[in-house]
C-alpha cells in the first residue's frame, strides 16, 4: 500500500458509516452544501476524495471554528433561519445528516433543501426501530439509544420520525426517492425499496437521496 492509499484508507475508515454511505451517493466535482456539518468530517472527506466544491452550515461555534481552521468554507448559522437566503439550484447536493429531527420546521427545511439543490440527501434515526418500539412498549419510558443519547427533557430532537413517516412526507411534498438505505445496529446497509415494513422495523437509521 503506498502513502496515498494509506491516507485514503485511514480517511475512509475515519468517517461514520452513515457519512460514508452519503459520500458514496455524491458525484465527483459537484457542488455540495452540508447542513449541520459538525466538525466538517464529511466535508473534508468530500473535498479531499471527491474534489467537490463544498460549503457548510453549522450551529455550534466550536464546530464552525474547527471547520474554518481546517480550511473548509463554513458559516455559523441555523438551518431553520438561514437556508432561505440561498438562491434556487445553487448546489448539486444539499446534505442533512442526523439533523432533520432537531429542526423547528423539518418540512420547511426539506423544501428549502430541494429548492437550493438539485438533490437532497437526508439521514436520520428511525423512531420505529424495533428496539425503540420495545423500549417504549415494555419499559414505558421515552427511548434512549446510541443514536438518541438524550433524556426526554434535554433532547434537541424535537421532531423524531420513522422511515414510513419520512417517505410519506416526501410523497406529500412531491419529492422522488432516488435511493434509500436502512442501516441495522451493526451498520449493515440494505436497500429499502419495496421492503419498507421490514426496513421500518429493522433499520436503526436511514439515508435517503431525493430528487424533484
Amino acid at each position, binding site marked *: 500500500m503506498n502513502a496515498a492509499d494509506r491516507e485514503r484508507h485511514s480517511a475512509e475508515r475515519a468517517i461514520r458509516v452513515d457519512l460514508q454511505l452519503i459520500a458514496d451517493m455524491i458525484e465527483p466535482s459537484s457542488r455540495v452544501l452540508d447542513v449541520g456539518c459538525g466538525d466538517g468530517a464529511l466535508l473534508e472527506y468530500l473535498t479531499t476524495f471527491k474534489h467537490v*466544491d463544498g460549503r457548510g452550515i453549522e450551529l455550534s*461555534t466550536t464546530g*464552525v471554528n474547527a471547520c474554518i*481552521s481546517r*480550511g473548509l468554507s463554513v458559516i455559523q448559522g441555523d438551518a431553520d433561519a438561514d437556508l432561505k437566503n440561498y438562491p434556487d439550484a445553487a448546489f448539486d447536493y444539499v446534505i442533512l445528516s442526523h439533523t432533520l429531527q432537531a429542526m423547528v420546521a423539518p418540512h420547511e427545511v426539506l423544501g428549502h433543501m430541494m429548492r437550493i439543490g438539485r438533490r437532497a440527501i437526508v439521514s436520520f434515526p428511525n423512531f420505529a426501530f424495533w428496539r425503540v418500539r420495545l423500549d417504549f412498549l415494555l419499559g414505558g419510558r421515552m427511548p434512549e439509544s446510541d443514536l438518541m443519547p438524550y433524556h426526554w427533557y434535554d433532547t434537541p430532537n424535537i421532531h423524531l420520525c420513522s422511515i414510513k413517516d419520512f417517505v410519506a412526507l416526501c410523497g406529500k411534498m412531491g419529492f422522488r426517492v432516488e435511493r434509500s438505505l436502512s442501516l441495522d445496529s451493526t451498520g449493515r446497509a440494505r436497500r429499502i425499496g419495496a421492503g419498507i415494513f421490514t426496513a421500518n422495523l429493522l433499520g436503526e437509521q436511514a439515508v435517503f437521496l431525493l430528487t424533484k
Partner: protein
Amino acid sequence: MSQPLPGYRVRLGHETPLRLDCGVELSDFTVAYQTYGRLNAARSNAILICHALTGDQYVAEPHPVTGKEGWWHMMVGPGKVLDTDRYFVVCPNILGGCMGTIGPKEINPATGKPWGLTFPVISIADMVRAQAMLMDHLGIDNLFAVTGGSIGGMQVLEWAALYPARVFAAVPIATAAHHTAQNIAFHEVGRQAIMADPDWHGGDYQAHGARPHRGLAVARMAAHITYLSEKALQEKFGRKLQNRAAVSWGFDADFQVESYLRHQGSTFVDRFDANSYLYITRAADYFDLAERYGGVLAHAFRGTATRFCLMSFTSDWLYPTEENRKIMHALNAVAANVSFAEIVSDNGHDSFLLDEPEFHRVFEGFLDGAAEHRGLPRKSGQ
C-alpha cells in the same frame, strides 16, 4: 511629527486622476505605505491590510510617534497569522489620514496652505480606489487577500464589490455594510466635541498655530467606550478609585475608569489630526454599500469568485454579529464562497486588535485553505 516618517511614499494620479465620489478630482496626491515580507516572482502572495479609523500603516513595527508596538503586531510577522515568511503584506495609510497620505493636514499645492476643511469629503470607496492605484503602482494585479477590521472591514467589502477579479480572498472583520443610526450618532458626538473646541478655529487651526487637543481627546474618549464591552469595563474598573481612599467631592478623575479614558484621550492627540478624524468618521457614516446596488446588498457581490471569511465578536456592540450576519446573508444569496465565525470574547469591538487565540486560529486556518487553492506553498516545516 517633524521628523520624516519611516516607510514608503508614492505620488499617484498624474496620468489618471482619482475621481472622488463627491465629484472632485485628485490629480497629484501622496500615498504613504509600509510593507512586510517579500513579493514572490508570480506576484501572487500579496495581502493588503486596510486600517481602521485611527490606525495607520505601522502595522508590525514600533509606531514612529508613540514608540508603541504596531497595532496588529500580534497578527503580522514571521510565523504569525499573516506570515511574512509566506506573504507580502502591504498597508497604506488611508485617504484622509494623517500619517503621510493626502489628508486635511497636508498642503494643498494649489494654495500652498494646509487643506483643512477645503479638503474634499471622501468615501470608503475613494479610499479603496486610491489603494487600487497603489497596487497598480506596485505591479500587483491580484491580491491574495484583503483584510481589515471595523472601518478597515468596510474597505475590504468595497474591494470585493469594486474589484472582484483582483481579490482572491477577503477577510472583513467586526464590520458592517452600512452605518446604523447609533454608529452615526456616536461619530457625531466626536465631531461636535472637536468643533466645539475654540482651538479648532473652524478647521483652520494649523494657520493659528493651535491644535484642538481637548475636543479631539473627548472624541476619542467617547469612541473608546464603544470599543469596549460593558462587562470588560466593569471587570477592569468597576467603581475602583484612582490613587485615593475616598471620593474627592469634586470633578477630578476620582474613578479609575475616568483616569483611563483621560489617558486614552491625551495620548491619542499626540498622534492624530482632528480634521482627519472628522473626514474619516464622515466617510464611515456615508458608507452604505447596498445603496449603489439598488438597495440590495447581494447585488454588490453578484458573480463573485472571491473566497470570503467574515468574523465577528460576541461582545462587540459597535459592529455586532447581526450586522456581519447581514453581509453573510447577502453573500449566501449569490452562492458565494463564504465562511462566517462568531468568536466568543468579552473584549468588545477591540477584540480584533487583541490576543484572541480562537480568532487567530480561525483566521490562519482560512488563509491556509485559501493559500492551497491559490497554489501558494505551504507553511515552512509542514
